[in-house]
């Protein structure tokens, strides 16, 4: 199969993720959409790796996964703490950092 199709898929996933982040209020869903965008990026890296016939992109994808895993740990912890203190997981409720 033509590897360019993977790029189309990645673009589609990224767009879905981006819209999710912008549209949804629930922090967990937003978080999942961010993961979707990260994985879309991973997909492009692997696809380019395949197209160019070297392993650089695949190695990069592993790094991204590790960083994403670490981010999930921290991010979920923040969301849990937020929920405990405010009884809500809506990102719009946490809008105190403004002038």
């Amino acid at each position, binding site marked *: 199969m033509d590897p360019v199709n993977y790029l189309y898929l990645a673009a589609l996933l990224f767009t879905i993720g981006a819209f999710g982040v912008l549209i949804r209020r629930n922090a967990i869903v937003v978080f999942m959409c961010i993961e979707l965008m990260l994985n879309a990026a991973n997909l492009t890296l692997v696809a380019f790796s395949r197209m160019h016939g070297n392993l650089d992109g695949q190695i990069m994808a592993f790094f991204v996964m590790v960083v994403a895993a670490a981010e999930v740990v921290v991010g979920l912890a923040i969301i849990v703490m937020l929920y405990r203190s405010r009884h809500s997981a809506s990102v719009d409720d946490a*809008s105190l950092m*403004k002038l």
Partner: protein
Amino acid sequence: MESLIGLLVAAPLLGAAVLLCGGQRLNRTGHLLGTALAAVSFVVAAVLFFDMVGRDTDDRALHQHLWSWVPVNEFQADIAFQLDQLSMTFVLLITGVGTLIHLYSIGYMEHDERRRRFFGYLNLFLASMLVLVLADNFLLLYVGWEGVGLASYLLIGFWQHKKSAATAAKKAFVVNRVGDAGLAIAIFLMFTTFGTFAFGPVLDDVEASGASQATLTGIGLMLLLAACGKSAQVPLQSWLGDAMEGPTPVSALIHAATMVTAGVYLITRSGAIFNAAPDAQTVVVVVGAVTLLFGAIVGCAKDDIKKALAGSTMSQIGYMILAAGLGPIGYAFAIMHLVTHGFFKAGLFLGAGSVMHGMNEEVDMRKYGGLRKYMPVTFITFGLGYLAIIGFPGLSGFFSKDAIIEAAFAKGGTQGWILGVVTLLGAAITAYYMTRVMLLTFFGEKRWQPDAEGNMPHPHESPKTMVIPMVVLAFGSVFAGGLFKWGDAFVNWLEPVTQFEHGHPPLSVPVITGLTVVVLLIGVGAAWFQYGRAAIPVVAPRGSLLTRAARRDLLQDDFNHVVLVRGGEHLTRSLVYVDNKIVDGAVNGTAAFYGGLSGRLRRAQNGFARSYAVSMFGGAALLVAATLLMRAV
């Protein structure tokens, strides 16, 4: 001998420093110290004088270089003194008359609790004036010039608790500032033209320096402006009358030995520049002629004895400025009149002070009268000063004023005739107003009035310390002119410094002398006719239009008020308007613009994470689009 020159200045300067910084414990001895140091200065001056006379005519100038003041590449300012015949004349006058005035002040200021401070200021005045006449360059002269301005401010406003005195001091200072600006500009011009401001290089060879006529005229006019300020010449004359608010010894010092003589000194010293700039000289002569009539007319109308004498000073200085403007035919006579004037004007002022002392500080001559019996010594010394100033034949004013009148005629052409007639007219008016002062004060009926507390005055002769200086000055008033005239001693003495040409007046000398005596008699006669025969009203009659104008100093203050003060106010107001609306407007407008802009931008910071995310995505999308676009191009 050179090393003594510094001592001339150092003695009074030390006195000023000790008296002003010494504090209360000098209250009882301060005046003696001040007088002694002035006397030291005079003794040193006398020693230097006899030493100078002992040397050859060409070898008389002494020079003392103390230290380099501002040595910057081309710009070399030195603290250096030069004592030539011209400086010597001034030094003797300043220290001599100055010492006598110190002595007089011991008695006059006896009951003033700030007497120590007064003597400190007097010493400062002497020191500044000595720096002025001893400096060997214009910059150091400027230092003395400013010092004189400061000291006069302090002394005129000495009784600062009186509002009028404080105002008069401020007025003198401000008006002098205008003249000082002139001197500063003249020095700038000299430096750009000659590359230096030392007397030698600037004045020795003005012709060969290649300076343009316009530049020299400019320097001359600026020097004249400076002289007008210090010497109270039209148009900067307005401070002199008000300066009478100071204690009387101060008036004597300002009018005789220091301050007002500075302008004449400056013009005579810079004679080389004026000789090369005939246009500037013409202006000098015009200023002198106008002032000599102006002062004389004002002097006729004043009932305040000191203000009448102040008008007379203005007029006499006008004579000197006029003579100095005549060039080499006049310089020596200007200085000669200055010295004789120093004697008789100091004597007259000290006499006036003595009269006021005896009359409960009353200054209105209409409330004097008949004082000759009560104050005989004052009467005689004042009378001799009076005869000297009106130019009574044989007394010193006669010789010096007559010489100026001859020189004025000798100017030649129509100018010579005009100047000659003006100086003769001035002599007549001088005789008139001085006779008026004399008659109102010492002759006629007693018109004494009780003072504010209801005490009738009990006129009495003043204490010895006041009388002795008056007697010494009276001797000077009588004999100085004759001594100077004898064998042209004074002219020959100054000739190496100021040059001298014999003027050739269109009338023969005896005719001019005769005319001088005739106008003198006319003036005296007119005054006697008006004030000697009839009883004098205690309250001044309304008088003619001219009299009323002259009482208001020929409307000088009204003119200054309308033209300068109002004009200045309007200028200030328009500048404030421009500043507020345009300058501040631009600054404030810029600030308001950015303030408003940031207020709008602030709304973007709403705290919603998703709205930040939109801007991030939007920004990223724009970047990607831009990158693609660039690649496509």
